[in-house]
């Protein structure tokens, strides 16, 4: 578990920008923060040091009473997304404090971005694991099937972890070492090089390194 502060964000989409030398860079635009500290967790009380933050304001009428009661101490309304960041010293933060992009990141920083990848549904082994499959024509009777999945009388079972068809995507994915190309504090926007996991409007956790 990284003991580093980060922010929550939302993927806006991808585009292309040009550096001054004329190099085209594919970038992802992330709306990031402000995150409000909702709770401090300490070794003494919860057994570990962390801060709990909320992102993306939610009307109090849309949240239930326990959730509103929990967010009341911060006094900044309720949030759609609530997550924790492990920090070494939670006492640096106050409940109700807003953390902005510029507090945590600067241009040129290397970050890790965690999100939920796009769901692909139930997929076969060719798409899911990149199996080659067989030829489609010339009398081939082996197209996209997984082929043999093990031996016969011994061990009389399929070994665990055998790659077979199943549900693909919609899982947590971390893209490591993403470079920050630009920060726009007035719009709470991070512009990072390359892609990040998940669909547009998807929740992202951005960790400093």
């Amino acid at each position: 578990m990284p003991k580093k502060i980060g922010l929550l964000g939302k993927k806006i989409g991808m585009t292309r920008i040009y550096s001054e030398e004329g190099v085209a860079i594919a970038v992802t635009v992330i709306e990031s923060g402000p995150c409000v500290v909702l709770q401090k967790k300490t070794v003494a009380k919860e057994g570990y040091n962390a801060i709990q933050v909320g992102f993306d304001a939610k009307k109090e009428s849309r949240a239930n009473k326990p959730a509103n009661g929990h967010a009341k101490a911060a006094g900044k309304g309720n949030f759609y997304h609530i997550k924790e960041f492990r920090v070494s010293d939670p006492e640096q933060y106050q409940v109700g404090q807003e953390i902005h992009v510029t507090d945590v990141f600067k241009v040129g920083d290397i970050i890790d971005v965690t999100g939920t990848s796009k769901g692909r549904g139930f997929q076969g082994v060719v798409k899911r694991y990149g199996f080659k499959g067989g030829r489609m024509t010339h009398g081939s009777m082996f197209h996209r099937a997984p082929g043999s999945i093990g031996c016969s009388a011994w061990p009389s079972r399929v070994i665990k972890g055998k790659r077979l068809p199943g549900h693909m995507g919609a899982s947590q994915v971390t893209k490591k070492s993403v470079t920050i190309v630009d920060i726009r504090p007035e719009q709470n926007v991070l512009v990072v090089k390359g892609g990040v996991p998940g669909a547009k409007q998807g929740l992202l956790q951005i960790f400093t390194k």
Partner: protein
Amino acid sequence: MNVLEQIEKENIRHDMPDFRAGDTVKVHIRIIEGNKERVQIFQGVVIRRRRGTVGASVTVRKISHGVGVEKTFPLSSPRVEKIELVSQGRVRRSRLYYLRDLKGKAARIREKGIS
């Protein structure tokens, strides 16, 4: 306005002339060699123009020393100094890939306005 559109708007260039497939253009490209910078001109026929915002590009084809050369330039790139329209051609499609199979007299493009 959407942040994404705003970022694209800042990166897009609007100083490109109006040209289309079949036209002959001169593309002035900035070339960086070591720490020196110079401008090179690439003249040829536009065989494809891809529309779009920051991703728009143009593919120019010319015959250089008997060898066909194609270059694709992003239209919003600062490396492209300018694009000059030399002449307009009369063609009947937007993607002139058929020129790759033609050479000499057959690869000529009729000029616009001359029947």
